[in-house]
């Protein structure tokens, strides 16, 4: 029971109140780069999930063997191993997706979000806790990434699922042809959309904090 409560708390923090992208603002480079279509986001999100989960477990298993001095180096090495594996799997099973993600798959190895989770959390916790934390943080990362992808693809090109669904992989058309704002698919659109998403998160979090403070004041009275 207690465990379940704890996981729920962690889930809330990872997905929302301490979301790695929207609140902690880490690992932004792949988020901005691949978020032009929903399929890219799914591919990237799953890769990050797999890499972070596996590296967290391995780092937690090795935490007593690794000398403190080489902690960061070992974390990078473990992550690089799983990134290489993920890259190979993507390349052999989903070659078009792997081409579109390009160099951003190998760059997962130096993602600051993954490094900070393995290095600060997995290195100090038991295997099960590390696995849960890795999965939750990666889910939060993937959720923010998918949100950004959905907004950019829907408003930018008026489709969803381009490259996977629809006739010839063109995606399912939701807005009429030519209604999209092309700028959102350009690199500039990544910056602008992420800015709006982070601003919205900051607004909601501030409102929540204000509400909590007001409720506490009322309880005191």
């Amino acid at each position, binding site marked *: 029971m207690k465990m379940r409560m704890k996981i729920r708390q962690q889930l809330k923090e990872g997905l929302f109140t301490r979301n790695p992208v929207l609140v902690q*603002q*880490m*690992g*932004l*480079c*792949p988020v*901005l*780069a691949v978020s032009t279509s929903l399929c890219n986001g799914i591919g990237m999100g799953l890769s990050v999930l797999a890499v972070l989960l596996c590296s967290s477990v391995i780092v937690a298993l090795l935490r007593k063997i690794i000398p*403190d*001095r*080489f*902690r*960061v*180096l070992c974390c*990078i*090495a473990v992550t*690089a*191993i799983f*990134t*290489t594996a993920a*890259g*190979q799997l993507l390349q052999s099973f989903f070659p078009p997706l792997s081409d579109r993600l*390009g*160099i951003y798959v*190998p*760059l997962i*190895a*130096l*993602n*600051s979000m993954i*490094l*900070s989770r393995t*290095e*600060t959390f997995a290195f100090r916790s038991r295997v099960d806790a590390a696995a849960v934390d890795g999965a939750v943080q990666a889910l939060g990362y993937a959720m923010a990434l998918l949100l950004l992808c959905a907004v950019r693809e829907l408003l930018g090109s008026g489709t969803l699922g381009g490259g996977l669904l629809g006739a010839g992989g063109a995606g399912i058309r939701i807005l009429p042809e030519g209604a999209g704002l092309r*700028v959102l698919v*350009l*690199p*500039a*659109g*990544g*910056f*602008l959309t*992420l*800015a*709006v998403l*982070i*601003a*919205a998160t*900051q*607004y909601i979090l*501030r409102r929540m904090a204000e509400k909590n403070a007001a409720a506490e004041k009322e309880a005191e009275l």
Partner: protein
Amino acid sequence: MNLASLLSVALGAILADNFIFSRFLGGSSFLDNSKTLDTAAGMGLAVMCAMSAASVLAWLIDKFVLIPLRLEFLQTFAYILIIVCLVQLAELLLRKPLPALCPKLGICLSAFCPKLDACLPSVRTSCAVLGVALLSTRSGLTFVESVVFGVAAGAGFLLAIVLFACVRERLEYSDCPKSFEGLPIALVSAGLIALAFSGFAGLQIR
């Protein structure tokens, strides 16, 4: 290999495919270290050196070690190793003659340091440096082209971060909506600069 192709590699890396505004490499370090002009310039210069060296080393390793041994799948691993060593070396070389400059450059923080907080800046920039290494070998450049590509990518990074720091210094005194304070407004201005940079797309030298 002629002058025109070298020029187009260089212009592409500096303007059309600018590392920050079109490829987003080193995005986090760029947003963190661009608050004042002098940290931005120091950081940009350090990254430029690292990128040039990484591009050359990656090409050499690829050509003389990985391809002959058919170990191309270890590319990522090998490059990370080089980059970590490079950062170490830069630290050793710079700490003695320029101890005051060292923290400013942000590269004295290496992968061996015990505290993560101190380490993240270097990890974030090494993401961009790894990006240069991967791009220069994956796009099949010749040796001279990869040298030019490394230097130009670094110059593009420097240009971007200096431009952005100038904008950012003015943003400090601006009155923006509360929810946009901090990163969002920085991202909006980065987006506007990126929009300007997208005008360079399709720039070609014949």
